[in-house]
């Protein structure tokens, strides 16, 4: 057991591991904040759709040969978020069908582009790491960390300032709208935040597993806690804990970071389900 801690301590002395932990904690924290809202507004599929769009954008950016992909991916994902919400409101194609279309389309296009244009000798490795985030978190630069910290700070500040409005719009959009809350604006804000979170978390768990990071902590917290505030706080704490545990385990056991974190989230969900059952019986 001592050996494990020594190994961890040694890893933590490396810059790139420190970066990974910082980005991991921030991404996990941000992605958990809006989880409850997304689950309850039946918006979780928007998160899923956007993550695939982010993958497509990443592929395009890689093909063009950009050195720093994040700003491009961010712009495309935020743009798609706005578009998805708009089309969901005004067209006759149902929201979920539109999202399924865009998300699968982006996924296919991304892989196609990477296949045709990639000069990389290890194509499947590249694709795999974009989808599952297996190594990218350990190759972050100082600039990535700063960008991530800036975006996280923005997400957290906006979330706190608009917390009461987000609650109102999530609990009962009609009531909020009827009493003068600009629900359309806040829906848009939520979609944009989700887009930012997805780009943030892409480094950590890759685009396929982001939804897990958004949804699992919220679902776990909802099993045990009964108020919006306590659920939000609990899912934030839970998400950060799972990210830290996941990163630690992946370093020691040499497993992929993203899937290890998601596995930790799943275990936590199991525990919270059980705790919820016991609590409701008591």
């Amino acid at each position, binding site marked *: 057991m001592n050996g494990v801690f020594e190994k961890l301590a040694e890893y933590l002395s490396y810059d790139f591991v420190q970066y990974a932990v910082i980005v991991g904690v921030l991404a996990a924290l941000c992605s958990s904040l809006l989880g409850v809202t997304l689950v309850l507004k039946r918006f979780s599929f928007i998160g899923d759709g956007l993550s695939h769009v982010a993958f497509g954008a990443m592929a395009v950016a890689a093909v063009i040969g950009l050195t720093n992909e994040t700003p491009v991916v961010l712009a495309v994902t935020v743009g798609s978020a706005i578009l998805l919400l708009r089309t969901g409101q005004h067209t006759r194609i149902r929201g979920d069908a539109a999202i399924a279309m865009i998300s699968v389309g982006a996924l296919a296009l991304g892989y196609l582009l990477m296949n045709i244009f990639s000069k990389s000798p290890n194509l499947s490795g590249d694709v795999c790491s974009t989808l599952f985030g297996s190594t990218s978190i350990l190759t972050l630069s100082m600039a990535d960390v700063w960008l991530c910290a800036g975006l996280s700070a923005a997400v957290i500040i906006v979330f706190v300032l608009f917390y009461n409005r987000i609650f109102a719009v999530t609990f009962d959009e009609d009531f909020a*709208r009827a*009493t003068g809350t600009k629900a359309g604006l806040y829906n848009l804000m939520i979609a944009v935040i989700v887009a930012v979170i997805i780009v943030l978390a892409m480094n950590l768990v890759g685009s396929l597993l982001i939804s897990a990071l958004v949804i699992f902590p919220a679902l776990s917290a909802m099993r045990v806690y009964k*108020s919006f505030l306590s659920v939000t706080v609990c899912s934030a704490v839970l998400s950060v804990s799972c990210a830290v545990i996941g990163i630690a385990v992946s370093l020691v056991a040499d497993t992929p970071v993203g899937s290890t974190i998601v596995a930790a989230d799943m275990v936590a969900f199991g525990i919270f389900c059980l705790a919820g059952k016991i609590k409701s019986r008591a």
Partner: protein
Amino acid sequence: MLEDTKNGTPLIECRGLAVGYDGKPAASGLSFDVEPGDYLCIVGENGSGKSTLMRTLLGLIPPVSGEIKRAPGAGIGYLPQQTEAQRDFPASVWEIVLSGCLNNGKRFRPFYTRVQKQIARDTMAQMGITGLKKRCYRELSGGQQQRVLLARALCAAEKALLLDEPVSGLDPKVTEDMYKLINHLNRDDGLTIIMISHDISAVERAGKVLHVGKTSFFGTREEYLRSPAARGFMKEAEAE
């Protein structure tokens, strides 16, 4: 709250209003006024467009045709029919009631003020749900949930309260309490009430009635009970 009662300008004015979705009217030819202090009951068969009318009055959907004028800054509270999503929502009673105060202030404020919190506390006391403050909404009984949503609506209702089938799914005793409460709000607090019901007995306490359906009607309760619209409606209710 009572200032506007004196000058008598209507809170809501509708002329030749048709309401519906995607340009297809569900109900049309509606002309009526809601004056401050009114108790208006909107009745009609299921599917006659009552809820669509309510959503139009609230400004949630645009009218298909006709005119609708709302008094500027009309502080309207709304008691919706409960949705499935709310039934498993993790929220405390306090959080829900307080959310009714969100737009009470004039300026944008990120957090609730002391005044807003006091309004929420007073309203909860008035509704007799102070003891439920920390309870989880989804674990309450139907009648308790309805009171919580009513308290939230009252926090927003500076002038008028719109209720969409406020007693559906409640047992007769709780239904009676609910009607008494609404009556009290109208008579003693001077709150304008607009209530939707598919149940003709809801008309009993109303001052004015709007019947939505094949034959529409607008007038006082006494006039309504003598009208062909009411007779047809009662016949159908008996047939059920």
